[in-house]
């Protein structure tokens, strides 16, 4: 079964919408069939939205049942960050590809902060 992300929730910007998307998905997951979710390109999809959806899929041990169809590097980056943070297997497929793959977990960069006596030494861009 193939669904659009906007079929599950709209807009796809917040954590609460991610939870809503999972609730929409749950009856379909219970049927046991594989599900493809097309993360539509022309709508912003926030990390919080994806994180909540993936977290709940992981908690219900259903993440392997879902493949995210990915249109952009930015969305793939977000899924990689979530896979690393949540230690959940996230499956994806490029729109042009026909092979589903496990999204490689890539943790967020955590740059060291320096303490400064004055306000930031670098001005606005």
């Amino acid at each position: 079964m193939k669904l659009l992300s906007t079929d599950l929730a709209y807009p796809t910007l917040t954590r609460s919408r991610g939870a809503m998307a999972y609730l929409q998905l749950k009856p379909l997951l219970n049927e046991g069939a594989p599900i493809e979710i097309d993360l539509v390109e022309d709508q912003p999809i926030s990390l919080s939205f994806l994180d909540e959806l993936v977290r709940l899929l992981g908690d219900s041990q259903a993440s392997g049942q879902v493949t995210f169809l990915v249109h952009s590097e930015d969305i793939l980056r977000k899924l990689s960050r979530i896979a690393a943070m949540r230690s959940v297997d996230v499956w994806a497929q490029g729109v042009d590809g026909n092979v589903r793959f496990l999204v490689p977990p890539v943790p967020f960069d955590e740059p060291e902060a320096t303490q400064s006596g004055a306000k930031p030494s670098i001005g606005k861009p």
Partner: protein
Amino acid sequence: LNLNFWTVDELLAKVDLAQVRPNIDLSNVTFLEPFALVYLGAYLRHHNRHGKSFTVNLPTATGARGYLARMRFWERFNFSPDLIRRENLVRLSSSTSFNDILDIENTGNVAEEIGEGVLRILRSNVVSVNKTSIAELVSELVDNFAQHSQGPLAICTVQYYPNAHRVDFAIGDCGIGIRNSLSSNPQYQSLRSQPHNVAALKAFEPLVTRRGEGGTGLTEVAEGIRDARGMLVLSTGDGWVSMTEAKTERGFMYHDLPGVQIELSFPEER
């Protein structure tokens, strides 16, 4: 005087709060950047809430003075937030104007409403920025404030500077602040004895939040601002944090203002 992140706290630290009706001297202000607008608004709201009212020397520069009037700044911030008239809880009524102050109430869809509104405005103007990315980051921040502020209202504003080729977004409140919020989670209780700027940096780490399931909003905002080669500045209490692609810094503000105030600056792609 350009009132911005670098100057606004120093100016307000000079206000003698021991006086019955303290004086805020804005007479030399010629320009206000979004961070300063939000910081000054949060300052007035915080003290108004505690029964303090101020005498304000308005800017002598007509540009700055007119700007504050057009923002209905004094009507919005010189009174208790409970008394703001309903029609003045502005909600991106224009699809073209960047220059509104918006109030953020803790309602279910305020983050989406403002995120989508900002996207609409960016799309209808010729601004060379990653529009969807900015809308997502704005939405993450607004959601964060709506969830965690515990104050009556937060505020935000967007400004486009065509000559400087830059879009600034600022958001702020005078709520409980990052340190109080995070340390209410037993896991981060030790932050209570740390400086505000340490607690603020902690909040940018993945899954660090006062709630159990962990949040990602500020982590994503930090990465987004680095990717856009922009700048983030944040103040909370007497602490500040700044982030650019090259550097993350933290330090102390001149003034200790409750709540959180943040500005994101996005350069245009050329």
